[in-house]
């Protein structure tokens, strides 16, 4: 076995997994606060990446201005979706809410095709080009710097939720909605905030992933990988999202490199199936007990 090759593949996979962890974090924030499974997260990522394309490519802004603008655009999109389409569904069955997010995903794909056509696009390169070596292992610069930027946001998020007022409100709502409400927390605003923050994480990851792999209206399919990540990690666990994100990213890349691209999805979904049978609530998720 070629350990150097394995090491390089693993490294690339782990870096990709870091981005998955970021997207999964966005997913988990939304789920924890509002109990909504967001099937549209891949499409929100895609929309932000297309916004970046429009700002940096079409309007020729500096990528470092376009990136924050695109991410803000993506999070505004998340807020608008919550206000207009998710809030009216409050209290409906989870099936209905999930179907709404699937519908939103379809609308976003259509919008993107409408504005930017269905052709695949390349994002203007904005990350440094020098190859990165960790020890002897080569890592593609786009992936390496993408990972760095992603982790930076991840750490900011974790600190924010731990220490800031807004973060505490969010965690309080997640752990007991009624208690949070009676303590004067504006639950409506928390819901909206969760969508904004969740979409923000997804948007940044979207631009970074699109910068390495290109962009097309099918980009949202990555949402399926993220779904695997959050189920494996546990839907309501931030730690689970991080661990499972890195693991699934690694597994997908290694399976793709050794078995061929067609094995990527089946490999991760196999892990998913095993987890669903052994620990349906995920590695770190809360085991809910149901009563009549």
């Amino acid at each position: 076995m070629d350990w150097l090759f394995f090491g390089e593949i693993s490294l690339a996979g782990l870096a990709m997994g870091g981005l998955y962890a970021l997207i999964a974090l966005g997913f988990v924030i939304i789920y924890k606060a509002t109990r909504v499974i967001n099937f549209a997260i891949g499409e929100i990522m895609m929309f932000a990446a297309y916004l970046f394309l429009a700002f940096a490519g079409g309007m020729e802004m500096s990528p470092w201005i376009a990136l924050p603008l695109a991410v803000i655009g993506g999070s505004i999109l998340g807020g608008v979706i919550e206000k207009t389409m998710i809030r009216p569904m409050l209290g409906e069955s989870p099936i209905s809410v999930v179907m709404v997010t699937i519908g939103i995903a379809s609308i976003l794909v259509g919008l993107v095709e409408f504005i930017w056509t269905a052709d695949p696009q390349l994002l203007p390169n904005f990350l440094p080009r020098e190859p990165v070596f960790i020890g002897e292992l080569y890592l593609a610069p786009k992936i390496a710097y993408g990972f760095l930027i992603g982790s930076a946001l991840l750490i900011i998020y974790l600190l924010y939720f731990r220490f800031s007022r807004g973060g505490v409100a969010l965690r309080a709502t997640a752990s007991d909605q009624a208690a949070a409400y009676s303590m004067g927390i504006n639950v409506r605003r928390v819901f909206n905030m969760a969508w904004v923050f969740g979409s923000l994480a997804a948007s940044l990851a979207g631009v970074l992933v699109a910068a390495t792999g290109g962009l097309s209206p099918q980009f949202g399919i990555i949402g399926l990988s993220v779904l695997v990540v959050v189920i494996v990690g546990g839907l309501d666990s931030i730690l689970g999202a991080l661990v499972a994100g890195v693991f699934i990213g690694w597994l997908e890349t290694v399976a793709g490199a050794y078995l061929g691209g067609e094995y990527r999805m089946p490999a991760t979904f196999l892990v998913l199936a095993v987890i669903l049978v052994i620990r349906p609530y995920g590695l770190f998720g809360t085991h809910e007990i149901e009563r009549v």
Partner: protein
Amino acid sequence: MRIGDAKQSYEADEAIWTSQTQKLWLGFFLLILLVFPFVVDSYLLYLGCLVGIAVISTTGLNILTGFTGLISLGQAGFMGVGAYTVAWLSINTALPFPVTLVLAGLMAAAVGILVGLPSLRVKGLYLAIATLAASVFLHFIFAEWESVTGGMGGLSLEPAHLFGLTFQSDFSMYFIIVPLAVLMVLAARNVFRTRIGRAFIAIRDRDISAEILGINLLRYKLMSFALSSFYAGVAGGLFAYFYRVVTPESFPLSMSIFYLAAVIVGGMGNLLGGILGAAFMTLVPEALKLLTAALTPFYPNAPVFMSPMLEIIFGALIVGFLIFEPHGLAEIWHRIRRFFRLWPFKN
């Protein structure tokens, strides 16, 4: 106008056809179905066949999602199993189509039971994701098991045949698809008058309560999966006979979502809703095509925007129905019927 049909016994209340008026209209509808292929052009005939297949598959999904409350994102995968079974049988054996279709249904039902196994432990969204995993595996098998499925190239099959008759044209396929659709919807209607169907509904309403009432959850959930996949398998088999080519790309994930959307737009847990939803969702893209064709002389760019418009309309229909009309087209239909119940003597 439908008045004076107060029910005086439980049997009368539970009858499928409850009134003379209903029988009259139903007979009229069946007559239209019978005359339809003789009077319309080939395009409408093609659409009629498509709607028929969609009705069967949607009814199947409705049994699982609408009546038993188990969400499935694997419907397209089950249809694929049925389609590949039919394709393989028609290439390797000389069985007539009724046999191959039943085998396709049974094969899909077997796969459905396998996929349904986690349903005892997981439910709701977790189950939806388990079925999503199943559809990923099925797609993988369709694409990679080349000796049976022909790989990415797929399989081409001979037309359906029975007693030396071959069913090659859309016209002849219509007479397989539509009677079968009517039969299977009727069968589903009857299922919900039996213990099995009532058990499904009880599980949907509250599975723990259902278990306390003595319903064996695993057994009935698997039964629901089997029944639903049987419908999907038959629909997939008809799909194979209709297009006479089956590839892994014939049954994408978006197709599963399409059928879920049809169930929701039509009305969950309502067989009539399933029929309306299937017809509506099949015909919307076609209506959009016609609209595009009509607009092209004025806006030469119109065809370019058709596919994105379709995605947007598809999504907007799902979101719009869920927010504004959660009971779907069936509810609209009932509202119209209520209006005519006393018409023209309103109030």
